[in-house]
C-alpha cells in the first residue's frame, strides 16, 4: 500500500509540473525579452545537463572524452542525431579496449 502511495506522489508531482504551464499558456507571449529567454532555454538546459555530466557518463573520463570528441565533430558536420549518438557510444566502447594498450 505504501508503495502505491509513493509511486502516486512521485508521478503526480512530476505530471503537474509538466501539465500546469503547458495547459495554462494559451497566447503567444508578446514580450521580446521573454520570447528571447524562452528561445534560449532549450540550448541552456541541454548544455547545463551535458557539461560536465557527460564526462562521468561511461565510468571512465578517458573513454567519455573520446566519445564526446566524436560527438562534437560529427555534430559540427550536421550529422543526424542517431548517428552522433551511436558513434559517440561506439567510440567510448572502442576506447575502452584500445586505451589499455597504451597506458
Amino acid at each position: 500500500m505504501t508503495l502505491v502511495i509513493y509511486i502516486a506522489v512521485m508521478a503526480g508531482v512530476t505530471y503537474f509540473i509538466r501539465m500546469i504551464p503547458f495547459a495554462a499558456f494559451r497566447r503567444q507571449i508578446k514580450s521580446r525579452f521573454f520570447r528571447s529567454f524562452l528561445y534560449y532555454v532549450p540550448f541552456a538546459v541541454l548544455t547545463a545537463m551535458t557539461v560536465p555530466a557527460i564526462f562521468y557518463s561511461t565510468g571512465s573520463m578517458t573513454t567519455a572524452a573520446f566519445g564526446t570528441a566524436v560527438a562534437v565533430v560529427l555534430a559540427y558536420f550536421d550529422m543526424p542525431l542517431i548517428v552522433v549518438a551511436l558513434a559517440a557510444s561506439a567510440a567510448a566502447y572502442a576506447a575502452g579496449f584500445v586505451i589499455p594498450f597504451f597506458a
Partner: protein
Amino acid sequence: MKSPFVRGLLDGVPIALGYLSVSFGFGILAVRSGLASLTAVIISAVNLTSAGQAAGIAIIAAGGSYLEMALTQLVINLRYGLMSISLSQKLDDTFNTPRRLLVAYGITDEIFAVASAQKGLLTARYMYGLISISTLGWCMGTFLGASAGALLPASLTNAMGIVLYAMFIAIVIPPAKKSRGVLAVAASAALCSMIFRYLVPQVTSGFAIILSAIIASVAGALIFPVAGEGEPEVESV
C-alpha cells in the same frame, strides 16, 4: 508526405534507443533496491523521467516521507516546467485542452529537445508519435534491465551511458554554429554548470541545471535578443 504521427515515431527512434540504454540502468537499480520488475516498469510508465525516478527509488528504499518524495520530485523535475512554457509557444491551433493534458505527460528533456528543434508549429499527432515510441523504449529498457541486467558486459552498458548526452550535443552544436546568441548561451550554461558542480557542490544537480539555464538564458535574452517575432513560425509539423 508522411503523416505527422509517423514522422513523430521516426523522430523518436533515436530517443527510444537512448532511453533503452538509460532505463536499462534504472531497471538494474530498481531491482537492486528491492523492487519487483513489474513495479519498476510501472514507475517508468507513470513518471517518464530518469533523474526523478532514480531519486524516487532511493527514497522508497530508505523509507523516506511522502513530503520528501514530493519535494525531491519537484526540485529535480522543475526544469520540465520551463520546457512546458517554452513548448506552449510552439503549439498549433488544434491543440485544445484534452490534447494538452495528454501531451504534457511526455515532456522530457529529449522529447522537448527534438520537439523544440522542429521548424514551425507542433501538432498533437506529431507529439503522440514522438512520445509513444519514446515511452515504449523507456519501459522496455526498464523491463530488460530489471530482468536481465547481469547478462550484458559492463564495458557495453558503460559505453551506452553517453548516448543521450551525445544526442544533446548534436542538438545544440548546429544552431550554435549559425547564431552567436545560441553559442554564447550554451557556453555560459556550461560554465555555470561547472561552477555549481565543482565550486558549489551543495547545490543539488536539479537546482544546478535550473539555475544555470536561467542565468544563461536571461543573459542571452538581454545581450542577444531574438529579432522581431522571435522564432519564425511558418508551417505546422
